[in-house]
């Protein structure tokens, strides 16, 4: 298993735990009054689960298992692969911080985090598609 796949899969598992933990906290809202930034974290929780866990796990396993691109670069350019991982995760982290913050106290910094998050996650998705496209082929 390539190093990057291990990073993807282990990061995905961390996000799964965090997403479920946040889900449990949100489910406790009726029992314990929650601060506003947590009450507004519903979209963040969904994206922790769908992007942080599901998408990231798919990216990692596809990077490992899909047919080789070339003999010289079996999984495509290494720099693009690492950049894809970094962009996806920095983008998601920016969202985790920026989205509840922007909902509670809108401002330039929180808004900037969301803009950065949108751009970074988009780059992560496009990077993965570019990296994977040539590997989706017959043997």
């Amino acid at each position, binding site marked *: 298993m390539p190093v990057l796949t291990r990073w993807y899969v282990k990061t995905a598992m961390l996000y799964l735990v965090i997403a479920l933990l946040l889900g449990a906290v949100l489910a406790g809202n009726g029992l314990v009054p929650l601060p506003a930034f947590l009450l507004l974290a519903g979209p963040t929780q969904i994206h922790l689960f769908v992007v942080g866990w599901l998408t990231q796990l798919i990216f990692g396993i596809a990077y490992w298992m899909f047919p080789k691109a070339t003999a010289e670069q079996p999984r495509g350019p290494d720099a693009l692969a690492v950049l894809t991982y970094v962009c996806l995760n920095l983008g998601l982290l920016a969202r985790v911080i920026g989205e509840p913050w922007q909902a509670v106290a809108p401002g330039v910094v929180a808004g900037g985090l969301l803009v950065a998050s949108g751009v970074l996650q988009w780059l992560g*998705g496009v990077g993965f598609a570019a990296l994977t496209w040539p590997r989706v082929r017959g043997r």
Partner: protein
Amino acid sequence: MPRVSIWMIRSALVALVLGFSIGAIMLIGKGIGAFGGLSAAIPVHVELVVLGWMVQLAMGAALWILPRFGARGPARGAAWSWVAWALWNSGIVFVVGGAAGAPVVQLIGRLIELGAAIAFGAAVWSRVRASGISAM
């Protein structure tokens, strides 16, 4: 990788880029305080990312990975898998197209997606069985 898997997985990658693009635009809109009008795109974003990307990738990978039981050339049910690919993507196009306020178009899209799921089942059903090699 069989040709139908190539088409399904590449279609899934296209849906991934489109879905992420819409998601990025909405998130940027939220960041600059212009999310109100963009929130209508949430169902399209979900359709592309969940059905277009994730489910379609799973179907394409399943058609690639599931055992062929020694079949040479196209696997069993290959014709059904092409029907599934065509219907699945047509259904998504209808659902996305109907998201702008045409519930009948969305209903047609959902029915086409149902047809795609049945066709996919027909394609893989006979390939899901004990191989005789594994103990489980």
